[in-house]
Every structure is written in C-alpha cells, then in structure tokens.
C-alpha cells in the first residue's frame, strides 16, 4: 500500500512501487486530466507539480513521491480561476486541448519561479510539445500574467 498526497488529499493505492505516477493517477485514481503522450519524458503531456516543481509523471516512479506534495491539473484550481487557466481562456490557447493540462502545469511552475519570464525563459522552461502549434498563444498568455 502506497500513500500519496495529491491536490491536498491523501490517497492510498495498491500498486507496484515502480509504477509511474502517471498511471497511478490515470488508472488507479481515475484522474484523467493528466495525459499520456510519449511515455519517455519528451512531450510533457503528463506534467504535474511535485513539491511545486514541474515534473514528467510518466517517468516518475510512484515510490519516489510518497512524501511529496503532488498537484495535477484537477488541483491547479477547483473552478478554473488559477491565473494560468484564466489567461488560457482569455487568449483561447487550447485547440484540441490534449497537451494543455501539461502545458499549463509547466507554465504555472515557471511563473512561480520567474514571475516575469522572457521569451528565452519560456522556451527553456516549457519544452512541452503541442501538435496543434499553440506556442505563440502559450507565450502571449504567459506574458499577460507576468504583466498583471
């Protein structure tokens, strides 16, 4: 039995300790907002926060995060009011939307560390892949939050 703290709630799950956090979230806890993309830490669709830092859940064994505070898109806010979510709505960032939970988690973590990121900071920190090509709006939305 493994105990996890996700979105400020304790969850007990019966899994192999080597199971990636992503699959515990999706398969055991039915939290499907966090997406499976590549499974090899490249695309960022599975990005969550571990103690406030952006992390790729698809390569994070669940045994590594038993003492950590985990935040997923479901916990970024309960009503879509997080500044990143509000900016994403205002700028109509998502197209198909599949990669956007991971994109928003990466953006939220960046803004916590660098409240006024430059384009270079954004490029360096947000390596998430979006097949729809929403990158220009991702940048614009992040800059709009930095200004406020």
């Amino acid at each position, binding site marked *: 039995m493994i105990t996890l703290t996700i979105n400020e709630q304790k969850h007990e799950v019966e899994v*192999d300790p080597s*199971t*990636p956090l*992503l*699959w515990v979230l*999706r*398969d*055991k806890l*039915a939290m*499907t*907002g*966090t*997406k*499976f993309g590549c*499974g090899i830490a490249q695309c960022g669709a599975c990005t969550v926060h571990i103690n406030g830092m952006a992390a790729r859940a698809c390569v994070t064994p669940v045994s590594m995060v038993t003492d950590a505070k985990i935040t*997923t*898109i*479901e916990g970024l*806010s309960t009503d*879509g009011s997080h500044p990143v*979510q509000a900016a*994403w*709505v205002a700028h*109509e*960032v*998502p*197209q*198909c*939307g*599949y990669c*956007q*939970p991971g994109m*928003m988690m990466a953006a939220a973590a960046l803004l916590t560390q660098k409240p006024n990121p430059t384009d270079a900071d954004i490029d360096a920190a947000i390596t998430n892949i979006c097949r*729809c090509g929403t990158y220009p709006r991702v940048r614009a939305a992040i800059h709009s939050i930095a200004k406020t």
Partner: protein
Amino acid sequence: MNFALNRRLFLQASTVAGGGFMLGFALPGNEAEAAAAPEVNAWIVIQPDDTVIVRVAHSEMGQGAFTALPMMVAEELNADWAKVKPEFINPTEHVQRNRVWGGTATVGSRAVRTSHEYLRKAGASAREMLIAAAAQQWKVPASEVRAEKSVLTHTPTGRTLSYGKVASAASRMPAPKDVALKPHTEWTILGTPKSRVEIPDKVMGKPVFAIDVRLPDMLFAAIEHSPAFGGKLKSFDEKAVAKMPGVRAVVALADSAVAVVADSYFEASRA
C-alpha cells in the same frame, strides 16, 4: 465527449424498467419527454429556463466546430447566443434514431463547409414552429409574431413570450415544409467573432478524449510488432508474460504481432 445516458434515453429506459411507476402519472411517453425538455426538432431542445441546447454532430478537435455549428442554428432560430448551450450528440441515440443527425465524420475541414444548409434550415424551421405556437396561444395570425433574441413578440400589442414558455407547444407543431433562410446581410451571429465555448472545460482538464474513456470491466491491450517492415513473429514467451501483474491474456495477431491484454494500459505495455 459526452457519452452519458441523456435524458431521452434515460426516459425510454426508465419507462421500460419501471413501467408501472411511469403509468402512475398517466402521461403518454411523448408528453413526459416534452415536459422534461422539449425537443423542437432533432437539433434543438429548449428548456423552460430558455436555455437552448443545440446538438453538434461533429467532433471538436480545436477547429471550432463545437462553436461554429451551433452559431448556424442560432442565427436562423433568432436565439440569444448567450443562452445557447452546445451539446454533443449521443452516438447510441444516433443509431437508435436512424442516424437522424446525418454524417458525423469530422475530416477535411468539412464540418463547417458542408453543414450550413441543413443546420440553418433546422434553426429556421424551429423558429417558425415557435412563432406558430405563440400565435396559437395568443389566437393571432403568425404574421403578427416576431422572433428575436429568444423572445416572441406580438407586434401589434407588444405582448411577449420567451422561447422556453412555448417550446413545449412548438414541439407539437408541424414542421414547415420549406423555410426561407436569411440573407447574410441580416446575420447577427454568423460572421461575428465568438469565444470558443469548450475552452473553459479544456483548461480544467475535463474533456474526455478517447484514451480517457473508462467502461465497466474494461481491459487494455498493448501491441508489440516487428520493428522492421514485413517482419514475422517467430516466438514469444506466453507463460512468462501471463504471470506478470494484471495480465489477462496474450494473443498472437496472425504471424506479425503479439497483443497483451491487461487490467490497465501500463500493465499491458510493460508486459
């Protein structure tokens, strides 16, 4: 995205399951449905609180169809756009109702290009039925009734009724055989910028993509095939794989691949 049992199917199902209970209300099936949420036609349901549900038969993949297609209906319906609530059709109901919503394939930028005529006609037809229902209630000629922004007005006297008040009666009106569509110079919704309606859900991670669908007792399969084109399957250790956690079956797919079926996708793909 929404595969939940909708109200119509629920009513059908519960009418069958609890027949005696439903009969207790002495309401014929159509009346019960109309009272629940009147379907003016297959595309349009108007609730008593004036919410206009417009059904969408194409998928939303970021191209904006979930917003653009209801705009076509709302334009001819003369609906208040703020009260329009797009809703995906239920695929099961689509089959049960003999594919009442037509083609659902979403491909080649065709959803918007090819849906104009029938969606606008559905909106115009429902608008005429609402006008006819209001005229009947007021006992006036339909030509004296104007429909605008989800409100019906009897022009000579200024009396008004909201769409929600007459939707039930409108749903029992005969559909007009032919309806004239507005010239584009009179459009107030089409051709104007509108916010994409599904975005607030998308920023919360709520949309159910195919990979997110969970059904009772669902199993997951992962397929391993030859990394080289045309490669053949020589052998695989079925016994070793079958012992791994969560694995339910190991299946050879002809002579070219192996599928592992497990309780979760991770367990299947790891095996």
